[in-house]
């Protein structure tokens, strides 16, 4: 409904890219979905991480537009890391992703008034 011919990022996509940039600049080259949601909680000071239904749809869209790349962790990697949990899907932000985030932030600053409805009902932000 929205994505056809639409190149603009929606709010959640921008937030995820900013969280990805934050994690990359603090030393992590790869991150999994939950760690990204947790970083977002830290940046926004919210209580609950973004719901999986929203998070992974947004990550898929970002990957489709080339802003992120992903790979599944192998069993060997998981074992070498000493974890017993299911394999993780790791993401990295691309140069296109960084550029898209910068562009979205600049546009948001210019049109902050017009986009005020983006943050309706703040207690549900990020879910």
């Amino acid at each position: 409904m929205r994505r056809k011919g639409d190149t603009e990022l929606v709010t959640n996509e921008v937030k995820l890219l900013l969280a990805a940039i934050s994690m990359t600049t603090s030393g992590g080259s790869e991150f999994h979905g939950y760690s990204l949601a947790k970083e977002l909680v830290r940046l926004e000071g919210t209580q609950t991480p973004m719901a999986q239904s929203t998070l992974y749809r947004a990550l898929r869209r970002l990957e489709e537009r080339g802003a992120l790349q992903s790979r599944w962790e192998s069993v060997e990697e998981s074992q070498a890391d000493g974890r017993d949990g299911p394999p993780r899907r790791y993401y990295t932000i691309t140069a296109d992703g960084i550029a898209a985030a910068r562009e979205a932030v600049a546009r948001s600053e210019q049109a902050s008034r017009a986009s005020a409805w983006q943050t309706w009902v703040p207690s549900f932000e990020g879910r």
Partner: protein
Amino acid sequence: MTDIQDPRAIRNNDGGPSQPVRRDGAAVLSLAGWFDRALTWGLEPTEREEILRERESDRYEHVTDPDASMVSVVTRSVWSSLGDVWYRFVETEASALPLAIMFAIAGMGALVDTFTSDVSAMVGALQVITAIGYFALAAAGLRQPRVLQRVWLIPGLVLASFGTIAGAFVVPAAPNSGPFGWFFKLALAGLGIGLAIVAIALIRDGGSRKWIIRGGTVMWGSALVLAIGGIGWAIVDVPIYSTRLSSLMVAFAGVVGAAVITRMRNIEVA
């Protein structure tokens, strides 16, 4: 606390001390997994398998995260399931269409009630004004995805808020609704006030973010009051089946309204 020998123990995200999966966490993982399976039913098999795999991994990380409470795990799982239901119908979180449809239905309801119920001329006039306002709000959302058109939005907000607030005072409480009839009046007043707050915020300074958020929050709370009133009415008015059905429809409308409002965060005003 730390038990590397425990087969359920894993390292946390930062490579810190291992945390066992608590029994209640395992139950949440299992239950949420079933919800995921149900809500992704019918998707293309490869895509579905990938979604389930990633969700399972995510929930495991969340449940074993020493910083996360079980309340946050459960809350997130519930919101995720509600989100899945939403996306099955709407495809994306950023569409103005559900809001437009909601107001179109509300407008139809007000109009139909005007001509089918035995209401006074004053109430009838208010319902027609409200219906026109709701139709304008619907038009604001139908013109373009993701964007509410200001040219339709502001007149719609003004008419709808006036009609709804006045209606809360003038429309009599539903018969046999007991104290829950007042819930409807309260919900109508709240909805009208919320619409008015948003209208004033848009008219006065082009869209004060703080006040639009407050207006949206008031509307959201009013929709929940409507839902509670509808459920209460259905309970106190048990002998009359058709009334109970109406009251449950009102409750359903309240729940749907609250859900629609919470998902509107990505909509813009043009």
